[in-house]
């Protein structure tokens, strides 16, 4: 019996690309959940039209919050495997098979997509230093070694999804997830995934200066636990 797979896509004002992203996924994976995080545009309608189930946050709470909403819903519907996927078209549906394979195989709890395993250096230059610093930071604080600390492409087993507690509403959730992996001693691995940096996604992406805010949010959140 094939595992119950859900794809969770947090989205905020992505009406221009969300339709394509969802349609692309629905070809192979029928259970796509788009969490509309208080978008002011047609994101929800377009996602729904493309075949996704849409969960709607009435107000914008952040990617972490949206992700948790999607995860909670999927778990309630009996999900065995959950895939987190970006809404801006940077991730490829074709990579999903590779990302879920270790979980289907039963020897991993969580699989993290990495842009840097394939040595395909398409990352914009300004970003590279920040990302390298993030890796060091993560190693020191969360005691987990990964090559890509902020990649929204992940696969979680039901067990991992139940264990991980995402309390960070905004971008620090990515660091928090890594921290949770260590805290719960989950079996994890990275697999190479491709990222398509389009002008659209680059324009929408996080400013590198946001990294400091993310680090602070994460540290304070960790301390409060």
């Amino acid at each position, binding site marked *: 019996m*094939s595992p*119950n797979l859900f794809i969770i896509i947090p989205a905020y004002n992505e009406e221009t690309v969300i339709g394509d992203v969802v349609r692309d996924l629905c070809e192979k994976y*029928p*259970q796509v959940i788009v*969490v509309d995080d*208080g978008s002011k545009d047609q994101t929800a309608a377009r996602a729904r039209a493309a075949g996704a*189930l*849409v*969960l*709607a*946050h*009435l*107000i914008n*709470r*952040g990617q972490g*919050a949206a992700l*948790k*909403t999607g995860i*909670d*819903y999927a778990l*309630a*519907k*009996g999900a065995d495997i959950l895939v987190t996927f970006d809404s801006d078209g940077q991730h490829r549906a074709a990579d999903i098979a590779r990302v879920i394979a270790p979980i289907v195989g039963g020897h991993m709890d969580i699989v993290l997509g990495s842009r840097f395993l394939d040595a395909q250096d398409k990352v914009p230059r300004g970003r590279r230093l920040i990302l390298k610093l993030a890796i060091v930071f993560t190693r020191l604080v969360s005691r987990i070694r990964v090559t890509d600390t902020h990649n929204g492409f992940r696969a979680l087993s039901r067990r991992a999804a139940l264990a991980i507690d995402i*309390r960070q*509403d905004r971008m620090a959730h990515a660091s928090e997830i890594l921290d949770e992996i260590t805290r719960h001693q989950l079996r994890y691995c990275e697999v190479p995934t491709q990222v398509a940096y389009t002008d659209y996604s680059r324009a929408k992406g996080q400013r590198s200066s946001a990294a400091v805010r993310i680090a602070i949010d994460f540290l304070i959140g960790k301390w409060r636990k």
Partner: protein
Amino acid sequence: MLAIQVLIVLFVLFAISRVVRRFRGGGISPTELLGWTGFWILVAVAVLTPELTQRLARLLGVGRGADAILYLAVVTLSYAFFRLYMRLRDLERQLTILVRALALDKANKERPSPPSTA
């Protein structure tokens, strides 16, 4: 009276009137009314009797009354700010919990049974 004393006392009267109006409108409790009024009265007293602040300063080992008030104010305000900030964070978290509950509730009403794996 010095100009600053006049100004501050006038402001204290204004502040107290605001507090009373809030209480009348039902926005704050009797305890809060007492608390805030008491605070503003203390401010007025401190400004009107500089000998008091001078004694406080000597007690604390600080040169001038104004300096002592300043130091205490900075420390108190910083702490109050920190407390407020934490309150804000808690409120944000609660807001998210609420928004999430609404989202899941709405979804479950629209689709009570699990979507079929086509």
